[in-house]
C-alpha cells in the first residue's frame, strides 16, 4: 500500500464508509510500519477535524448573517443558505464553551482571569476588568442557592459606587438606580437560582481556533430586580484625537471599536433587560438584552427620544456567554454600527460574519452605563481604535 491508497482508506473511514476486514488490516499494518506513516495518518485525521469545526463555524456565521439581514439573494445557494440553517446550535465555539462549562461544573472549571498576561501590543484607550473585591452575598443575607431569583433581596446602596480601577476614565463608577450592580468574584459559588446559567464558569471566551481572550479581575453583575443603572464617565481628553468631538466621543470620520463579555441569568425575555448604553436617551445605542427584543436573545438597537428603534436580534440566547464586538463608524448624520458575536480573535472579522450592520442615530457619548432589571454579568470592557485593541489574545 502506498501513501495515496492509505489516505484514501482513511478518508473513506472518516466519511462514514465501512472498511472491510482486509482494508482495515492493511491500514493498521501501514500505520504500524513507521512513525512517519502514523504521523501522516494522524495529520489527515486532524485535517478532517479542522475542516469540520472551521467550515461549520463559517456556515453558522453565514446563517446568522443571512437570517438577520433577511436577504433572499442566496436562495439557490444551498450550502451557504438553506442547508446551513439546519445546523445552528452546536458550532465548535458553542460546544467549546459547553466543555469548559462542564469542567467548571465538575468543580475544576474556568479560572482564566488572574494571571493572564498580554500577548501583543493591544492598547485600548478604555479598559475595565472589574478588578475589585467581590460582593459579600453571605454578609448581605442572600439565600445560599435559592430556587429562583428571590424578589426584594438585593442591595439598594453601595454596589460599585466609588470603584475607580481600570483605565481611561475620568471618575469612579456611580450607582443611579433603585438597586445597584455588584462585583461578582466567583459565579460558580453564587448562583442566584438553580438554573442560573452563569454558575458553570467565569465570563471568558475561547474562539473557534482555541485562542483565549485576555481577561483579568472579577465581573459586574447587574441587579436582580428593578433596576440598576451603573455609570462611569470617560476621560475624553485622553482618548484619540480623531474620535474627540468637543467633550464627547464621536467625531465624524472616526472609527471606534468596543468589546465586552456578557451572560444573563437565563434567556428570559419580555420585559427583562440588561444592556450597555452609549449616548443619551435622545440619541443613543443599546447593546445587550433589550426591552425591544422580547425573545430574550442578545441584540442591538438605536435609541431615539427614549425609545429603542431598529432593534436587531441575534440567534443567541442571553443565557449564553458571548463576546460582543461593536465597530462604530462616526459619519455625518447617522452612524454605522457593525456587531459581531463571538468572532475569532487575532484577525479582524469580516463584515459578512457580523450578526448585524445598521444605521444608528447621530450619537456622541462621554460615559458608559450598564442598565438592568434582570441579573446579568458584564466584563472586560474595552474601547479602542482597532479590533486588536479590543480583542487581545491571552498568552498560551
Amino acid at each position, binding site marked *: 500500500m502506498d501513501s495515496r491508497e492509505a489516505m484514501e482508506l482513511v478518508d473513506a473511514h472518516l466519511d462514514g464508509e465501512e472498511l472491510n476486514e482486509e482494508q482495515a488490516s492493511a491500514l493498521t499494518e501501514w500505520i504500524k510500519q513507521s512513525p512517519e506513516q*502514523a504521523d501522516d495518518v494522524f495529520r489527515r485525521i486532524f485535517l478532517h*477535524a479542522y475542516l469540520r469545526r472551521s467550515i461549520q463555524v463559517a456556515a453558522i456565521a453565514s446563517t446568522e448573517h443571512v437570517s438577520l439581514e433577511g436577504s433572499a439573494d442566496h436562495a439557490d445557494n444551498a450550502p451557504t443558505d438553506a442547508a446551513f440553517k439546519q445546523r445552528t446550535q*452546536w458550532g465548535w465555539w458553542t460546544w467549546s464553551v459547553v*466543555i469548559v462549562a462542564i469542567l467548571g461544573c465538575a468543580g475544576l472549571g474556568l479560572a*482564566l482571569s488572574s494571571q493572564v498576561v498580554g500577548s501583543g501590543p493591544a492598547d485600548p484607550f478604555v479598559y475595565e476588568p472589574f478588578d475589585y473585591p467581590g460582593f459579600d452575598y453571605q454578609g448581605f443575607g442572600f439565600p445560599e442557592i435559592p430556587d429562583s431569583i428571590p424578589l426584594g433581596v438585593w442591595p439598594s446602596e453601595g454596589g460599585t459606587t466609588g470603584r475607580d480601577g481600570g483605565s481611561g476614565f475620568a471618575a469612579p463608577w456611580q450607582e443611579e438606580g433603585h438597586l445597584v450592580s455588584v462585583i461578582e468574584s466567583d459565579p460558580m459559588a453564587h448562583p442566584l437560582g438553580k438554573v442560573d446559567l452563569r454558575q458553570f464558569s467565569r465570563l471568558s471566551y475561547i474562539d473557534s481556533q482555541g485562542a483565549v481572550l485576555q481577561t483579568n479581575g472579577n465581573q459586574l453583575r447587574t441587579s436582580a430586580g428593578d433596576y440598576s443603572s451603573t455609570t462611569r464617565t470617560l476621560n475624553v481628553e485622553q482618548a484619540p484625537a480623531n474620535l474627540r468631538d468637543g467633550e464627547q466621543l464621536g467625531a465624524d470620520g472616526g472609527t471606534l471599536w468596543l468589546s465586552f463579555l456578557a451572560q444573563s441569568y437565563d434567556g428570559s425575555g419580555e420585559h427583562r433587560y440588561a444592556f450597555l448604553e452609549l449616548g443619551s436617551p435622545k440619541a443613543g445605542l443599546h447593546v445587550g438584552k433589550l426591552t425591544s427584543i422580547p425573545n430574550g436573545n442578545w441584540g442591538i438597537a438605536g435609541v431615539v427620544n427614549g425609545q429603542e428603534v431598529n432593534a436587531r436580534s441575534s440567534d443567541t440566547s442571553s443565557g449564553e456567554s458571548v463576546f460582543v464586538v461593536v465597530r462604530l463608524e462616526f459619519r455625518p448624520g447617522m452612524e454605522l454600527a457593525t456587531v459581531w458575536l463571538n468572532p475569532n480573535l487575532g484577525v479582524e472579522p469580516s463584515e459578512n460574519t457580523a450578526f448585524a450592520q445598521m444605521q444608528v442615530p447621530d450619537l456622541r457619548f462621554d460615559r458608559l452605563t450598564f442598565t438592568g432589571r434582570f441579573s446579568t454579568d458584564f466584563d472586560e470592557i474595552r474601547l479602542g481604535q482597532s479590533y486588536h485593541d479590543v480583542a487581545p489574545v491571552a498568552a498560551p
Partner: protein
Amino acid sequence: MADSEHARDSSTQLTARDSRELLTRSWMKAQPSVFAFVIASTPQFSDAEDLLQEVAAEVAIRFDEYDPERPFLPWALWVAKIKIADFYRSQKRERLVFAGEAIDALAMACTRVQQLMSEEQGALEHCLKETTGRTRELLLLRYAEDLKPRQIAERLSMSAASVRVTLSRARSALGKCVDQRLGRKSS
C-alpha cells in the same frame, strides 16, 4: 475563624484555583488534538462531539490523578481511549477500525505532531480560503451539513465515487498547500 484557619483556607483555595487554571489551559491546548483522536474512532461528527464532551467531563473528574510533571496530552488521550471504549460498548456499534496497536500508534503520532498543529491550522485557514467552485461546495456539504458522500451525490446529481474522489483530492490538495506555506516537502 482563627487566623491560622483563615490562612489555611486561603492556601487551599489558591491551590484549587491553580489547579483549575492548569486544567483549563491544558485542555484548551489539547482539545483540537483530542477531537481529532476521537474522530479517528468515531467518524460520525455528532457522536464525536458528544464523546468529546464526555471526555472533557472525565478529564475534569480525574484531574486529581494527573501528574503535572508529565505531558498533559498523552494522559488526556488515555482518558479518551477509555471513553471511546465505553461508547462502543454502550452503543453496541460496529467494530472499531482503529483499535489495539493502531490506536496506540495514532495516540503516539498525536503526541508527536501536536506542536505542529497550531502552525498547520494557521496555514490551513489560508489554504481553505483558496478553495472555489465544486470543491468548496463539496467541502461545505460534507463538513457543515455532515452529509455523507452518497447523500452529497444525490443532492448534486453526481456519482458517489466522483464525490469521494473529489473530496479526497481536495484534502490532499489542502495538505500540499499547507506544506508549501510552511516550506515543507510534501510526503
